[in-house]
């Protein structure tokens, strides 16, 4: 067995004998890291999670979680993981507190222990004041926090988060990120999360895998992936009507120069250092820079680079569309 907390080899899921939702993916997650699956709707993120949390059987390939095989030792896996699903799954007719206790009971945690933990977790996700309110009165952010608390009741070694901020507004999303960071610090666990928000992967993950059409396109830390793009983009224009491409290309750190509609598009490493040098070199040759802007690559560009498109909206299956809409609708209710 490997020492990795999660490792997947050739993991594959085919639905209805023809739809390849997850296509021979290989990856590993090490102890204590936050690993993210980044991909558009229908890429196969949830399907991958569902196999890892043992509620879907892989069509092909294997994976292990904490050293336990997800098929042969499914019940061992279930004991060491926590799950925060994409949908809101709390029972709306019960209160927040009752939901947490219900989760605890499903793990067979004795009542003395579960009560204490429930109060701690409610405090942590700041739901103590609402613990005796029915979940149907909760807002989207509160529901998400309740799901987080439920996912942590058994002190999991690995927490699976499926699109933890889907449908939340910007502030609530940022707050949720803070909870996730806090929880990780508090419990020191390994996190496997999926998202289709690039900022989210950037803000939270130590390493990400970009997944599209069921295949992993690239794996790496957000920083590495951005660097792999080959640096920052400097765009500038000069007063004179001359071609300076050859001149700029010779400067250290500059990788590529293109002239587009009278502007120069320069790809360079360490843009903030290179840009002043470019200005200086041009000034010495008697050219006056009139405008300059510097952009750092974001995961957007990484994404675009690897998938050839920005986050697309594929046609989803009816079922996943319905689930999506339900989650969105509920998260908007305040």
């Amino acid at each position: 067995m490997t020492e990795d907390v999660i490792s997947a080899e050739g993991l594959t899921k085919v639905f209805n004998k023809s739809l390849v939702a997850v296509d021979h993916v290989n990856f590993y997650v090490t102890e204590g890291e936050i690993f993210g699956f980044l991909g558009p709707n229908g890429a196969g993120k949830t399907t991958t999670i569902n196999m890892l949390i043992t509620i879907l059987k892989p069509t092909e390939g294997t994976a292990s979680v904490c050293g336990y095989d997800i098929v042969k030792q499914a019940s061992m896996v279930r004991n060491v993981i926590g799950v925060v699903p994409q949908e809101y799954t709390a029972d709306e007719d019960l209160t927040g507190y009752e939901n947490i206790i219900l989760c605890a009971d499903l793990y067979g945690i004795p009542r003395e222990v579960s009560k204490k933990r429930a109060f701690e977790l409610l405090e942590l996700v700041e739901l103590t004041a609402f613990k005796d309110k029915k979940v149907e009165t909760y807002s989207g952010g509160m529901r998400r926090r309740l799901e987080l608390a439920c996912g942590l009741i058994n002190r999991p070694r690995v927490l699976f988060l499926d699109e933890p901020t889907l449908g939340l507004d910007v502030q609530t999303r940022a707050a949720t990120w803070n909870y996730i960071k806090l929880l990780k610090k508090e419990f020191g666990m390994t996190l496997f999360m999926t998202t289709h928000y690039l900022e989210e992967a950037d803000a939270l993950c130590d390493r990400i895998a970009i997944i599209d059409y069921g295949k992993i396109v690239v794996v790496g830390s957000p920083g590495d992936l951005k660097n792999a793009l080959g640096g920052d983009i400097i765009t500038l224009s000069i007063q004179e009507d001359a071609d300076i491409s050859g001149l700029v290309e010779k400067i250290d750190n500059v990788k590529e120069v293109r002239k587009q509609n009278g502007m120069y598009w320069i790809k360079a490493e360490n843009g903030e250092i290179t840009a002043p040098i470019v200005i200086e070199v041009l000034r010495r040759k008697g050219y006056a820079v009139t405008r300059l802007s510097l952009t750092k690559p974001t995961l957007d560009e990484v994404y675009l680079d690897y998938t050839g498109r920005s986050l697309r909206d594929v046609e989803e299956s009816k079922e996943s569309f319905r689930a999506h809409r339900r989650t969105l609708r509920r998260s908007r209710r305040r």
Partner: protein
Amino acid sequence: MSRNNGSKNPFHGFWALTNRELKKWYKEPFILFISIVQPVIWMGLFGKAMNINAMFTNNPNIPPEFANQIMRQTFGTSDYFSYMAVGILSFVSLFTTMFSGMSIVWDRRLGFLNKVLSTPVARSSIVLSKVMSATIRSLIQASIVLGIAFLFGLQTGPSFTPLNILGVFAATFLICIGLSSIFLLIGIRSTRWETQMAVMNLLNLPLMFTSNSLFPISTMPDWLQIIAKVNPLTYTSDAVRQLLLYETDVAQLLFDFTYLGIFAAVFASIGIVLSWKYLSK
């Protein structure tokens, strides 16, 4: 922080899930009220409005002692309301257990089922907790309806002792276990509650009318008798009538209970086996 989750009790999850279902019900007195009112209305409509006794007793051409005899020969008791009220207990079991099939479809649709499946709770507990909660609900509703039937003038038979009520519970228990297992099996793979609803609507009245719940089998055409003799509701109603209304035929009563016991055991077992197979895909 400690990861120790303490000692484990395998029934924990089962009772927690059962209690979850029951909570939804006892916390909403309105639902309980409706589920009692419906059978009581039926009891009133069929038992009192369709005054079958009166067809004979108010008939000037039939002497009163004959009238009673005709009633006894057909229904085994001289009071149609009493006969029918017992049938309504089957009706309560049937309608309550039908909703256990609905609830598993909802759990799947709302993602709750997926969450439960990712916990170590036994797969069979998931199905059995639904069976158990539907059964407990039916038992409570049936006892309330039975109490109301007594108030409306249910006439007990010569063999009746208060202890027989326990037998009534036992018969209701068995039929509910079997029926709710069947409805769960229908719902176990489905994600559309519309389908489940359609199946329920298709099954409920035929199941009622192809049993002896409202009318005795002996007056049915042959082909219908065959169906009625397979229908487990027939044996529930008969067992309850043996206990409450008739001069108890012990052999027949034993047969009723055996039939119901086998029915419950077979379908509950199928439910457990299929829950291993079908709950996860």
